């Protein structure tokens, strides 16, 4: 099978990329989705708060997904469900996708371009190195969310949550409303990893304590969790002896961060950022492998799906543009010689990373949105963007928090006049 464009993942990123690519004229495209329906993780995010930017109204996750699924249906975008992509490799100009499903078996698709939209995965207990027994009753918050919201089953009655990521906060409220007792949320860092509004409406509304600078130091119970011991940590994040409290419970939920799921990108040889775990992309969301684009949580973990849709639409349009250029020049467009001349973006002094990582001013639109996250809480701080001695942009912010994605807009006019290969530094100046 050959395709002009294969989109790996049928969640919010894949759907928005497909819709945008189709609207930009791509006829021969295909979405591959491993679940048995489109929509991705939104299907289990039954809470409200989605879509305020995109649709100017507050929707639940399934409703937000449905808007895009409907658009994809209207545009007659083909997709395959229950299909797992197991390999991705480059063969000359072809990007070879190996996929499998019960229905179709294992097969290859030779694609001219690919959009990576595989999303992210939760950090598991194994990745966290939590000491103690290994009984039943320990779930990532997203797994518990799937049990409760898709299958209608409660994973436990008495709950402790480690990590204050948004899914953990949302599940604290969800399980409380369903009749469980959520005793506390412990967060290793001195600040929350989730949105402020979720602290307010998911914890404060239900008097669930948020224990900052606390972590789990022991899990007891042989068959099923019987108790979880939580201790305070010092400034080096090491537990302080004597501060332990044992909480009898039957369930421990983990909401300790999300990791972009880039096994396939790695197989293809796409260079990844050591900070985000996602591909390094240029202004067109193109990865280090030409014709391969990335968007959504596989690129970097977002706080709002609205931004995922926006970013994925841009990636879909860029994939369409790449295909047009490819047919016009009948050779590899995209990552040409101008890649070396690209401006390199870097975060420092509190700015952890930027997306994109490089910008080719001759390929960019009049403006370019730069998204990034900060590494700590800041108050009354200024985000400064500079190239050498020249300050390109300076923006005051009342509050900056690691749980929230930030964005700035750079102008083509400002970037065009910079010497080729210049470094643009994003930093916090207090």
């Amino acid at each position, binding site marked *: 099978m050959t395709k002009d464009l294969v989109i790996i993942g049928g969640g919010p990123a894949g759907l928005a990329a497909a819709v945008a690519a189709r609207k930009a004229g791509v006829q021969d495209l295909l979405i591959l989705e491993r679940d048995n329906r489109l929509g991705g993780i939104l*299907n289990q995010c*039954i*809470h*409200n*708060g989605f879509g*305020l930017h995109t649709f100017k109204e*507050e*929707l*639940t996750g*399934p*409703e937000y997904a*449905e808007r895009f699924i409907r658009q994809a249906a209207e545009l007659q975008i083909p997709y395959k469900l229950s299909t797992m992509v197991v390999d991705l490799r480059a063969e000359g100009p072809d990007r070879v996708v190996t996929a499998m499903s019960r229905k179709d078996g294992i097969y290859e698709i030779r694609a001219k371009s690919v959009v990576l939209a595989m999303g992210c995965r939760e950090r598991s207990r194994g990745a966290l190195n939590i000491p103690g027994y290994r009984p039943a009753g320990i779930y990532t918050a997203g797994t518990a969310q799937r049990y*409760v*919201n*898709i*299958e*209608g089953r409660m994973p436990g009655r008495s709950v402790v949550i480690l990590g204050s990521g948004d899914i953990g906060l949302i599940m604290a409220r969800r399980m409380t*409303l*369903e009749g469980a007792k959520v005793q506390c949320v412990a967060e290793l860092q001195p600040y929350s990893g989730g*949105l*402020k*509004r979720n*602290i*307010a*409406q998911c914890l*404060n*509304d239900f008097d669930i304590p948020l224990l900052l600078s606390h972590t789990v130091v022991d899990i007891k119970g042989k068959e099923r969790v019987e108790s979880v011991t939580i201790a305070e940590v010092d400034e080096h994040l090491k537990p302080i002896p004597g501060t332990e409290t044992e909480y009898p419970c039957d369930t421990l939920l983990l909401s300790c961060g999300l990791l972009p799921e880039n096994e396939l990108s790695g197989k293809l040889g796409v260079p990844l950022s050591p900070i985000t775990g996602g591909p390094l992309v240029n202004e067109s969301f193109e990865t280090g492998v030409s014709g391969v684009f990335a968007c959504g949580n596989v690129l970097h973990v977002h*706080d*709002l799906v609205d931004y995922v849709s926006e970013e994925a639409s841009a990636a879909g349009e860029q994939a369409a543009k790449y295909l047009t250029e490819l047919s016009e020049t009948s050779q590899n467009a995209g990552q040409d010689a101008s890649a070396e001349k690209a401006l390199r973006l870097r975060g420092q002094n509190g700015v952890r990373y930027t997306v994109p990582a490089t910008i080719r001013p001759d390929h960019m639109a009049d403006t370019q949105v730069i998204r990034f996250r900060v590494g700590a809480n800041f108050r009354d701080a200024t985000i400064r963007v500079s190239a050498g001695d020249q300050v390109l942009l300076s923006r005051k912010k009342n*509050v900056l928090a690691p749980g*929230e994605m930030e964005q700035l807009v750079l102008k083509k006019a400002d970037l065009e006049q910079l010497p080729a290969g210049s470094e643009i530094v994003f930093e916090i100046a207090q």
Partner: protein
Amino acid sequence: MTEVKEFTCIRCPLGCNVRATLEDGKITEITGNTCPRGADYVTKELTDPRRIVTSLVKVSGGELPVVSVKTAADIPKGDMQRCVQELKAVEVKAPVRIGDVVLANVCGSGVDVVATSNVAAV
């Protein structure tokens, strides 16, 4: 008596830190909000706090055993738990479409509970 209360606005993901000054229980000043919704939220929070509630109801004859639902508008905050309890007694028949009313006038609030996802019949 002057009293200052702080709130995190939940009307959008910005999560503004909004401060209300009260004189003898009456709001005299609201600061820290970036848009009118922040002032509205705090005023409501002090007089009649409300929330949108999302949950599930059982489905018979569907491709999935449950369907996600929400209150079509916000209901009194104190009724959240009761709302979820009332929904436990509800069972709808597939097919269910987004927007279908699964329970009218929940907790006597005048607000309907509607489906937020589609469940096909099998």
